[in-house]
């Protein structure tokens, strides 16, 4: 899986690359408009992280260029601008997703995984981890081929864990992920604890192993 990171802030793009490398993605970085244009000309990336505010051009123009060749799949716009018009323009031009800065790297990872799953035409939108089978299209979870009865929030939580497996996820990051666009966001971490507790209980009842480990003082990890 090759990912192009178009972001002019060097440290940020390096950090993103570092994190994604650990997920076994191969990352390339373009720090400005022209480098980005060169790179997309030479390779068809699985996913492109696109910052709109580049020093020497507007990131949306890169998107336009991709649209010409009908290659806009897998573009996630990351932007500081928070402007509704940009969001609408970007999505209209064919971008898959839009993420506001600042974001948690684990959140970015989850979005990239979703986008790449959507790109797969071979119907393999399922994620298999040991006895877990997650059908991301139907949004259902099977343990040992038996359907797991969970709520929407618990599904999102499980998917988040699985996509970021073996990563220590802080309660903060989990809370942010679950609150999504909810105005002021979750800031009560007891809720996170409650949801995870319920999820673990349901998994245990369905006969699944407990991969969700609580790391004292840090958060949780889906350990496989």
């Amino acid at each position, binding site marked *: 899986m090759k990912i192009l990171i178009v972001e002019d*802030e060097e440290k940020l793009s390096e950090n993103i690359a570092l994190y994604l490398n650990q997920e076994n993605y191969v990352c390339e970085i373009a720090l400005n408009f022209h480098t980005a244009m060169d790179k997309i000309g030479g390779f068809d990336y699985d996913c492109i992280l696109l910052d709109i505010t580049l020093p020497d051009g507007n990131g949306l123009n890169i998107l336009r260029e991709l649209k010409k060749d009908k290659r806009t799949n897998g573009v996630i716009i990351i932007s*500081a601008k928070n402007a509704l018009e940009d969001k609408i323009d970007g999505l209209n031009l064919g971008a898959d997703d839009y993420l506001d800065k600042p974001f948690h*790297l684990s959140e970015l990872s989850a979005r990239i995984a979703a986008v790449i799953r959507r790109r797969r035409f071979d119907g393999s939108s399922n994620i298999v981890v040991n006895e877990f089978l997650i059908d991301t299209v139907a949004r259902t979870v099977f343990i040992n081929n038996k359907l797991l009865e969970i709520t929407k929030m618990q599904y999102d939580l499980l998917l988040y864990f699985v996509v970021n497996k073996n*990563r220590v996820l802080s309660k903060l990051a989990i809370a942010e992920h679950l609150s999504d666009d909810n105005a002021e966001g979750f800031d009560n971490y007891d*809720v996170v604890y409650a949801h995870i507790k319920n999820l673990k209980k349901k998994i245990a009842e369905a006969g699944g192993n407990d991969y969700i480990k609580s790391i004292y003082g840090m958060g949780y990890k889906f350990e496989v």
Partner: protein
Amino acid sequence: MKLTNHIATRYIGVATIVLLISVPLFYVVLQRVMWNSIDETMRFQKEWTEEQLKTISPEHFVSFNNDIIILPRLFPYKERYYNENIYIPYDNEMVTFRVLEFNTKAGGILYGVRIQKSLVESEDVLQAIAAMQIGVLLILLLVLMLINRSLQKNVWIPFYNTLDKLHKYRIDREESLNLPTSKIEEIDSLNRSLNDLTKHNKEIFTTQKEFTENASHELQTPLATMQSSLDLLWQTSPLSEEQAILVQNLTETNIRMSKLNKSLLLLAKIDNNQFTDKKEIHMDKLTEKILVQYENNFAQKNIQIQNDISLSGTIFADETLMETLIGNLISNAFRHTPLNGYVDLQISNNSFKIGNTANEGQPLDKEKLFRRFQKQQLNIQNSFGIGLEICRRICIQSDFDIYYEFSDRKNWFVVIF
């Protein structure tokens, strides 16, 4: 008082004073001049009389109208000029005369001579002159007032026009004053200066706003970089408990900073008039949409929601602003309602009211409530702070009213559309 009246009272006041002083003064001066003239005539008469008495005896002396009276005297009197009121039987009234008394000798005998002249004619002349003077001055006054009236209509209109525009001017609404040119130099100069001044101010103001917006944007990226570094740090396990706590604190602070930054950005945009896409919004649908998002939050604190949206209607406003407004109010209600409390929503077609059980039944400090960055209750994690400021600005932009009241042991926030 009005400028025209200010000027008018002075002109007319001075004119009146001049009138009041000058007329009597003029009268008195003229009178004295007349008396002097009469005295001069009487002096000639005295010389003529003395000449006559050389050849005519006093008993046979005849004067016109008996105006020269010669009588023998024992003792001489002082020569003098004076006024005397004498009764005239012919006219049946007292008439004022100018009198000259002097002494003369004729045939060795001392005589006292009295020459008198009626002042009636001269008085008449004097009064006529005075009347004319008063007349002229009164006409002048009248004309002054009429001119003043017409000036008010023609000259002051552009001035008041300018004043009116200034009165209505708001730096964040209009581009700049566009005052017209005028034939009157001062008004033209005034208008030109005001146009330049407001244009310049507007430019500075816009630059400031843009700066705030740009600065906010710029801040997002370093915050993002920091967050990503913290995320990576988090992954470098094992972390000691101490380190974990520190990284956690850093992350929390970073999130708070970024939320604050986003709020400031929103405020700048609201002020910059970037939300002007107005359309019909159904308040009940909007409120329900937002309530759904907070379902879990409310359930978790066991807060019951009572809502009365039967009377709600539609309003004409920007959707994003409305979502932000209602969202902030509901979010505030959620955060500041104690466990097992109540949140009451009442929507009508011209108002939105949301009340939540007050903490320990105590009302909030109205004074501090809407001021940015004020922390109301210290045990609440997040202050009302900027959320309410955003609500307030949105209401200003959309021409709504927002206020707080405490009733029924609940804190109520009311928005009037």
